[in-house]
Each structure stands twice: as C-alpha cells, then as structure tokens.
C-alpha cells in the first residue's frame, strides 16, 4: 500500500465509489446544517459551507463536493468551484472567526472552474482574496485533502495551520494531463507527468506542505468508508484540541511562517 505510484493512487482517487464529502460530513460532524450563498452573486453547489459539532466543539465546515453520478456532478460542476463558491467560503470563514469556531476545509477538486462566467466574475481575484484573508484569520484552520487537490482551486481552501492528506490523495500545481500537454504537447502522456510532478502525500510531506498523512484502509478509502471517516475524525479532534489552545496572534504568526519558509533556492 505504501509503495503505490502516483499514477496508481490517481486511479484510486478517481474510483467512482470513493467516498465524497457527502459521505464524510454526516459521519464526522453532528447537527450539521448547510448555509448557502456568497451574498454577492449566488450560491455555488461545488462548495458546501455550514456549521456543526466536531465531537463537542462547534466548527465551520467548508467542503468541495464531488458527485458520484452524472446528475450529482452536473449540479456540483464536478467539484470545480466558481468565484461565488470561494466567496461563500470566505464569508463563512469570517463568521467562524467572529464566533471563535475552528474552520475545517475538506479539499477535493480538479481545480477552479475555467469558463467565461468564472472569468467575468473574477476567479483570480476570488482565489487571491482567500489566500490573503485566510492567512490572517484569527481562528484555527485545518485542511484535509480527501482526493484531488487541484492547484489554486484547492489552495484557496488550504491556507491553514495544518494540512492533512489521505494517504492516496494528490495535491498538484497543475493536472498531470495539463502538464503533459504543455511539456510534450500530448495530454495522453499524463502517466509520465504524474510521476515527474511529485504530487503524493509523501512527496508533499518532504516539501513541508503536508503535515499529517491519514492512512486509508488497504484498497483505498472506498474499501472501508466508515474506517476512513473515523481516521479523519480522530485526526480532526486531536488537531482542533491542539490548535484551540494557541493564542490567535501566535496562530496567525505560525501560519505565515509555515508558508513563508517554503521555497528552494541558494543565496
């Protein structure tokens, strides 16, 4: 299980039976209720936002929604958010700060949506704003990459105090297919690109991006969704307990340092 290639993990992540946030949210949180809308344009079904209890702690949950059927995926746009999705997330994150609730982000997206409307409504600006605002949010932020962490569309929910990844999850600056089509003008070489890009949880731990790998059962999360949900739950309870004791100023200082030190260069 530990020796799977990035490509093999990608096949596990793309398995249509892999649990989504629709499975995890009821399994991990109690009394969860969803809040809709960014108060500016509309509501984006690609991101669920809401509040619930994690054990006995009220938390805000922001989760990217993959569907299992074509109908579900049509509704959630294959988990590719529009700007209003990111703006809803920011609105609810600020509310979390106001009411001293930790924020739990569940990341699972191929990337932010690329389309005319998304451009017109400022996809770039929406993501940028999240990066900046989450950096100084005075409440704990914990992100868990469940399946795909697709570039800026994932990062917009992953400026956090701690980033965890399920053991088969991937997180990349560009999709392997996209990289292959740029590098070799041939999208079908995505398997090769997949290995070159260094996108597994273990790779990301080495870069200081991933702080915790949550082990999936053999065969991947889909072989035992309950057990996977339990593992995520245990990690979150532990992380929230640790981070809640850190004073807000120290928390944001540490968060900035976490990202500040990432980069490889000589001087």
């Amino acid at each position: 299980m530990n020796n799977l290639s990035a490509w093999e993990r990608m096949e596990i992540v793309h398995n249509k039976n892999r649990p989504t946030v629709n499975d995890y949210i009821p399994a991990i949180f109690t009394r969860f209720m969803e809040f809709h809308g960014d108060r500016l344009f509309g509501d984006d079904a690609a991101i669920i936002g809401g509040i619930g209890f994690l054990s006995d702690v009220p938390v805000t949950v922001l989760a990217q929604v993959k569907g299992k059927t074509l109908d579900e995926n049509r509704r959630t746009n294959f988990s590719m958010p529009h700007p209003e999705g990111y703006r809803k997330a920011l609105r609810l994150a600020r509310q979390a700060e106001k009411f001293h609730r930790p924020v739990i982000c569940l990341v699972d997206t191929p990337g932010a949506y690329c389309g005319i409307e998304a451009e017109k409504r400022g996809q770039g600006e929406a993501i940028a704003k999240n990066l900046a605002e989450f950096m100084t949010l005075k409440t704990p932020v914990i992100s868990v990459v469940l399946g795909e962490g697709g570039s800026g569309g994932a990062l917009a929910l992953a400026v956090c105090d701690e980033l965890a990844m399920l053991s088969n999850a991937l997180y990349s600056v560009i999709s392997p297919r996209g990289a292959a089509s740029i590098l070799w003008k041939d999208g079908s070489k995505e398997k090769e690109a997949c290995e070159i890009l260094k996108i597994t949880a273990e790779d990301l731990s080495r870069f200081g991006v991933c702080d915790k790998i949550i082990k999936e059962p053999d065969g991947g999360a889909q072989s035992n969704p309950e057990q996977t949900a339990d593992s995520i739950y245990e990690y979150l309870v532990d992380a929230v307990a640790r981070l809640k004791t850190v004073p807000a100023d120290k928390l944001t200082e540490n968060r900035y340092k976490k990202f500040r030190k990432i980069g490889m260069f000589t001087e």
Partner: protein
Amino acid sequence: MDIEELFKVVKARFTDDSHNSPDKNEVRDVEIPQDLLFKCPRCSNVFYNDEFVNNRKVCPKCNYHARLTWQERLEMTADEGSFIPFDENLHSLNPIGFPRYEEKVQKCASDCHTNEAIVTGECTIRGYRCVIGIMDSHFMMASMGSVVGEKITRAFEYATQKKLPVIMFTASGGARMQEGIVSLMQMAKTSGAVKLHSDAGGLYIAVMTDPTTGGVTASFASLGDITIAEPKVLIGFAGRRVIEDTIRQRLPDDFQSAEFQQDCGFVDMIVERGMMRRRLSNILKLHGFPKERGNKPVKNEE
C-alpha cells in the same frame, strides 16, 4: 497583407528581368530582417521597429502596449540613478528534479541579465520613494517559482518594515510548474506578505502588464489597493485555450483584455505608458508620501 507576402512581392519585382517572370517557388523563402519591422500581435499591422520603439513599444495603430524587458520598464519608470536592487543573488534549485530545469533557468538568466523573472528594489518615481517589482515575461514567461516568490515576499516585508509603498508591474504565465507544489505555495506566501503589508497600513499599487495570468492573477497581482492596467494587455485566470477547450466554442477577441477586466470591475484604471510615471507619483502624493528630490523627466515622458 502579412510581412512574408509583402517581401515576396518586393523581391519578385526586383528580380523580374521582364524576359520571364519569376517562378513563385523561387522566392518562397524570403528573409525578414529581425530588427527592422514590428508586427502587432493584436491588430497585425506592421511598422518600422524604430517607430514602434520610439512610441514606447506601443502599437501606433491599435494602442496595444507590448511587452517590455525589465530594463526598459525600469528606465521608463524610475528616476534616473535612483534604483537600488534587492536580492540579486538568489538562485533557484530544482525541487522536483525536473529534467534540464537548471539549464533553462541559467540560459534565461544570462539572456535577460537578471537572476530571475522578477527584479525588485527600491527607487524614486518623480521624487517619491517606493519599493518596486518588475516581472519580465522574457524569462520563462515570468512564471513564479521559489525565487520569484521569495523576492516578492522580501520586497513586501521590507516595505512593511520601512513603511514604504509597493508598486508591482505584474506579468506572468502563472505558477512555475517545473517546481511542482513548491511553486503553488508561492501564491500563498506572496499573498500573505501582501496582507501583512496591508494590515500595517501599507499602500500597494498593482500595475498589470502583458500578460498577467494564472497563479499570479490568483495571488498578489489581484491584491492591490489600486489596480492599474496598461491598454489592451491580457489579464485573466485561465488560459484562453483551456477555456475554449472546456466550453468548446471560440471566445471573443477582447476576452480577458484590460478593458474587459475594467468592465467586469477588476481594474481601477487603464493608464497609457507615457502617463504612468505621472499617475503613480500622483497616487503616492495623494497618500501623503513626501517628495524627496526633483523630478527630472525620464526619456520619452509626456
């Protein structure tokens, strides 16, 4: 008529000795002198290069503001002799062991006479002191890797400490995929540095130049207190081809232009190159920064 056609006709006329008109095939390969003419990528009109350069590399016909090297931008922006560069000795490593990456960076560095795709430093503009960053699209399409991210972050941190305004001339193809996830993290890092500068009361002016796209649009480039764009430049998140592939239809020509972004509400004002120094210095004056020295005009200033 495009340049190749024009040259073919000219060459055909010169070689016509009136006995037998030249076979078209003989003059198919014509050499166009590299530095003689400029063909505008927007309107396809052709001009003498001298005319184009004297017009600050702005298309005389359609007003497209073409890409500049960092040296040209600096010369047009900063007061002469005022620029003090930062971090000229940072050099990128190869985080994911990407094939031939070091080679490529080194070649760009020697071609562009700078260590990386952004030049940062401190200067005065018409006497007003600021921290400045200039991205150069000739350097790997000014993609953002570790060094670009670090230079931007340090520039903002320095400005925060010294209570200086920051002016960033942005241009980029986005995050530098050759550095893998490390390049994505530069988006968070630079955005964090902008936020801390902003929270400390700092002024940040983003000047979007051709092309500002991808992970740079989705980070520090979109976080200015004031966002300026040059006329006709490309500004967007996703690449045009990616969108066309997604939606399977052709996009209108002005899609993602500076003017389009202003209509959509993401650009405060579009400023002509010849007016840029005056605009920037006026903004600094309006924010109460002191004038430090005389304002000797730079070459080509209006």
